[in-house]
């Protein structure tokens, strides 16, 4: 007998221009870590899953350093708000709003994301 875990069918999807764009299987997202996705228009998104199973997606580019690396940062939460810290110079970004928590004037794009 083979038992397939329930999640194998679930795909992580991003909303792009009103359509849902499938990125990968949900199982590829390790809680607390991210992955990067290449979007049809050449942009990159960083996708994360937190401990409670919530999904987040933001632009992958670190606006301070310029490299596309946010998916490789460490995640966490401050006062209940999820964030990712850039692996370059450690600035943190709110995963829900894209707001940089260490520099008010900086915000990165966010995407609607779901598992379906």
């Amino acid at each position: 007998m083979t038992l397939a875990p329930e999640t194998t069918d679930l795909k992580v999807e991003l909303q792009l221009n009103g359509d849902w764009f499938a990125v990968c299987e949900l199982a590829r997202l390790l809680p607390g870590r991210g992955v990067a996705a290449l979007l049809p228009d050449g942009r990159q998104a960083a996708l994360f899953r937190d401990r409670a199973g919530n999904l987040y997606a933001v632009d992958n580019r670190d606006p301070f350093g310029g490299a596309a690396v946010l998916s490789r940062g460490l995640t966490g939460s401050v006062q209940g708000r999820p964030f990712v810290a850039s692996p370059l110079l450690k600035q943190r970004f709110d995963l829900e709003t894209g707001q940089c928590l260490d520099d008010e004037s900086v915000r990165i794009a966010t995407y609607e994301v779901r598992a379906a």
Partner: protein
Amino acid sequence: MTATPEATEATPTIVLVGHGMVGQRFLEALAERGMTATHRVVVLCEEPRPAYDRVALTSYFSGKTPEELSMTDMEFIETHGIELYVGDPAVSVDREAKKVTARSGQVFAYETLVLATGSYPFVPPVPNKDARGCFVYRTIEDLLAIEEYARTRTTGAVVGGGLLGLEAAGALKGLGLTSHIVEFAPRLMPVQVDDGGGAALLRTIEEMGLSVHTGVGTQEIVVDEDGAVTGMKLSDGSELATDLVVFSAGVRPRDQLARDCGLTVGERGGITVDEQCRTVADPHVFAIGECALAADGRVYGLVAPGYEQAETAAATIASDEAAFLGADLSTKLKLLGVDVASFGDAHGATADCLDVVYSDSRAGLYKKLVIGRDGTLLGGILVGDAEAYGTLKAFTGSVPPVKPESLVLPAGAGESVQLGPTALPDDAIICSCNNVRKGTIRGAVTEHNCTTVPEVKKCTKAGTTCGSCVKVLGQLVTAELEASGVEVDKGLCGCFSQTREELYEIVLALRINTYQDLLDRYGRDGAKGGDGCEICKPAVGSIIASLAPTIGASGYVLDGEQASLQDSNDHFLANIQKNGSYSVVPRIPGGEITPEGLIVIGEIARDFGLYTKITGGQRIDMFGARVEQLPLIWTRLVDAGFESGHAYGKSLRTVKSCVGQTWCRYGVQDSVRMAIDLELRYRGLRSPHKLKSAVSGCARECAEAQSKDFGVIATSSGWNLYVGGNGGATPRHADLLAQDLTDAELIKLIDRFLMFYIRTADRLERTSTWLERIPGGLDHVRDVVVEDSLGICEELESLMTAHVAHYVDEWATTINDPEKLARFVSFVNAPDTPDPVVGFVPEREQIKPDLPLLTIGHRPLEGSAQR
């Protein structure tokens, strides 16, 4: 938009033309004085949106939305009954009849008219200046248009190398265009910096991949048959191919409306006003902001003086006393990652003044202070490092308490002094945008009980405009809190109230082997059950890894939950570089390597096109690997017998050695063999910070063992063990812990020493700082690890034995684990596609990173007098 219904002919009316930054501040100043209750206030706003933060305009490209840039609180407009007409500019003024006509045809009678029409970008009259692809850089609409046009183009050029021009060029580069800057003057930012500063700036900006053309003018814009820009002709006869041109050649006051109704304007533009900001021609009309020619004969292109004028005009209209007598033109910005600041009399215009200059053009540094005869600091220019800007600016106009030279020398060079903001007098202006003095900030802490920077910002308004004073603000708040004896939380982070040492004890004593378990049981109240943070996750991950065999955790850092705790470098088992590529450092124990090994490394580096360098740690670093190449590279390295060098981990790095007794005529012990033994024993040991070691074959110390965390020097009768040495930022000579040890004694002592350090140090605390910090210092450590005063030596040794017995090379494990390998891709949905942002350019026959998109204007400017 709101109308005040009861507005009648009888209510005196104030009409404001222009709803920019200064106009909005004027409205706030009116409301503060209660004038909005007694007057009808009409605002004519030309742009399609109410006032927004023009100073932070460029941050649109780093993700700010137009809504976020807005400075207009609709509730404020409504509660004060202000009539705001968006998208409806004033077209004429009849001063005789005291009436303003708007484009929509509405006519407003006024008692007081305030012009705050700002300025417009100056576009030099070159042929085809209005062609498709030509832009200016002033409004949100300009940025939207540039962004749209750039989408399908590859090259952009900015005319003008002033502050704004550089900002615009950074934005173009950020949009993915190859960017050029064309500046007529012989240097960049001609107004703010002098030749020396310009040279330092030029070097740094060119290194970032922007092409700078100074000393040339733009003569013509070249267009194709469809009238779209294809290039520009320069005054030196050359032609520059470009798809897009942004003019940033300065601004001119928007005084047409004033001219048309006969108000006096200056020779070079600007509505002439007196010290109360009242036009000299008509007592019922005021002009403020960039459209005004102030009583001191200047037109200010900065927001701070405009704000002061807004306050002055509002006060005058409310019959209070106020005057605008002139303002400071200090500027600081962080553009394209370069700090540039100028303040006060930057060009040394004062009679008899002297310059103090420090310049290092290789490092892109240039600092100049202008000093008066009596030692007064008059002004200065800082390029490349504007760290001292906040303090220096506040000292301008006074004699600083230390010698000026010491303020510009870099740390470590001669008598450099860090003059902290605590040395400033209470009346020094800390925030020049909002005119907040140091005393006011201290008062916010001591009298208004503010304990954080955001609270102080709210309380004093300091730091709320351009943000350049926030750093000094933070230092003042901390200093003030400490002075008033506020207790500082010693917890590891926001998630744990324990120190790292306490967490280590909990993990070891209770055999807790997951982070979540530790967080849920011992975290702070708000943090339990949460996601932790970037500080405690790697710290706890390191504790778990150091103790893995003892507490029953996997010793493999990418296993299960542990993978999510690791710093990014540990997670990819490689060091991330500035463009998102990685470096690869195989372990070369003791620095000893066979020719065969060298050849393998050479071949791999050649096949993958990696940059190679001999490191300071006696091994070879290969740079420029893409994430998906790491497993391929490591498969070959592991095949050839190499292991991870843990260059990425807070763990043992290298044990350097000299050739020692085997070859050297002075050597008294086999230092290479001992170095290899030590390196293999402690490899992979996770610790609070990195660990370095070295073994020298005699007292000549060619391996520099006394600069290591644990260093060994051969004696004729054995080994001397030194601990707590450090190179790096704060070098420290190691202390002698024990002498003339046998091999076995040496290893036993190092085992104990390292485990005691791992147990009691703080996160990111090298052995040197740890030794200085712990009560009792070296004597205490010697008591514990040599005399066993705490009776823990046996435990320390067995912890180390367990580590040694369970060591496995993590790269060998990883390349044999398909599930882990799947993580080494640039894109989860396109595993074969490399990250296009990772690019390289040649240098000295190898490669170097081609810097990806630059940092653009995210650090707001504090002024840009000339653009």
